[in-house]
């Protein structure tokens, strides 16, 4: 039998729990853990939880982005960024990182949009050394 992928486990867990009553959830979780044990996949539980979280957000249209900036971003800019990524359904985690000098870096899923001064200076260095 072909092994199921982490994404497949996460998807099936999501499908079962989506419309389940809160009372049923502990039993579903228990059965899911038994299933993983039978499939010898319990060691992948961390990845499945991560994948479940991501998949659930995907299905519910929730975008999660991390913003790294050198200084605090004002609410107007934050709203603008939210708009680009999907409006009110966007969850923003904002962190301050002094070492990027200026500008900001957006991390969304597997993509980084790097508009920091540090990156620009790095690129300028490469450009000048050519």
């Amino acid at each position, binding site marked *: 039998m072909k092994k199921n992928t982490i994404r497949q486990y996460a998807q099936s867990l999501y499908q079962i729990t989506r419309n389940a009553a809160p009372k049923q959830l502990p039993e579903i979780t228990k059965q899911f853990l038994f299933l993983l044990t039978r499939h010898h996949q319990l060691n992948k539980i961390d*990845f499945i939880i991560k994948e479940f979280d991501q998949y659930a957000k995907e299905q519910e249209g929730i975008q999660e982005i991390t913003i790294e900036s050198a200084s605090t971003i004002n609410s107007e800019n934050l709203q603008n960024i939210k708009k680009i990524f999907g409006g009110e359904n966007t969850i923003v985690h904002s962190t301050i990182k002094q070492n990027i000098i200026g500008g900001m870096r957006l*991390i969304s899923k*597997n993509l980084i*949009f*790097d*508009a920091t001064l540090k990156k620009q200076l790095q*690129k*300028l260095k490469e*450009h*000048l050394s050519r």
Partner: protein
Amino acid sequence: MSTNSIIEELKKNISSFKKETAQEEIGTVVEVGDGIARLQGLNNCQASEMLEFSGGTYGMALNLEEETVGSVLLGEYEHIKEGDTVKRTGRILSVPVDEELIGRVINPLGQPIDGGPELKIKKFYPIEKIAPGVITREPVSQPVQTGIKAIDAMIPIGRGQRELIIGDRQTGKTAIAIDTIINQKGQNMICIYVAIGQKESKIAHLVAKLKEAGAMDYTIVVVAGASQPASLSYIAPYAGVAIAEYFMDQGKDVLCIYDDLSKQAWAYREISLLLRRPPGREAYPGDVFYLHSRLLERACRRNKESGGGSITALPIIETQAGDVTAYIPTNVISITDGQIFLETDLFYRGIRPALNVGISVSRVGGAAQIKPMKKVAGKLKLTMAQFRELEAFAQFASDLDPETKMQIERGQRITELLKQPQYYPLPVEHQVAAIFAVDNGFFDQIELKNISAAEKNLIEFMEKTKRSLLDKIAQGEWDDKIEQNLKDACQEFIKSN
């Protein structure tokens, strides 16, 4: 340069710089150890793509699986932790290529390791490339003079050929390769020596010898030392041949030596097992044949319409206890156009190079031999074959008929003549003169132990008095008149001694 002009130049450079937001694809390290890493999230990653890990370490994607990407790490990996971010670079693993590399010792990523100035090379060649097709190729027709009598006479190598050097440890495999490099001086050849998994002390010694002989003026040394990760040993031959392809694209002839491919196969086996690829015979992965065939197939001689140039490959394989039937030796024997077989027994009997001429072959090199050598060596091969048949009877010398006795003695003299010290390659005209003399019986009266001295004297004599004849031979001229002149010269030499 005035301050203003500096400012102007800087302004000009900066104005040509385009500011843009960088978009990068990232993944996460889920497993790391023993020079490999398993990554998650790199959905669009390509095979053989370079990946950037934290701390500036690079890796190469090898296994593209459903959920993860298996990659080898090309450098230090102690600082890489689970959960670290990995970036895609979008570049297939490549090496810098330029004339600047000549005379340098570099690692397989093209970074100099000889303490010399940094390289500023803008051109890159991918390390993996499909070999030139049939239409662009041409048969081997020009020789690679190794300067080793036994090889140039009996196992000739042509430009674009792949000739395997095989033998146990300590049989002089590297010595043949180094002598060949030294002999390429003035032969319009660029040499690339790829050292795979070797002791750094041996490499240092070797580079010093090449420098001493003036061979570093046309040589590049690519080193993946024994202390470096297996991934570097795995990519080193491909990096070497990528550099060779750059020179071939300019119509030049290149000699590429891989010392040795057994260690590359070990490195590949290590990586494959760590990446959990299914093991096959001797625990090598299933594609270990393709590992070597795709490398050696890149050696070729291209026709003029396709730009000309050639890559001659001299792969080296180390056998264990003379076992040529092991997996890797048989694979490489079947891929190459012949093999030079070195034996421990011969080595300890003082026959150096310890070449077993009986089982060494060159399948295509004969076409590349110069005419005088072809004429002289044809007879030599026959004499040696007869000698091998009769060698067992040598101990009954007193009971043998004069004909057999003569053949044995001639064979012994040829064997003696074919002995050659290391770092002492001979020009082809000297080789022709010496082989002609012994094969035509001019050395029959000379005692066996004095053969090498007689050869030296003959060459000195010819250099002093018959330089024009030697020049003709070097240019590949051969007719009855030249043969007669050579005979007369040998007679004159024998008389004068």
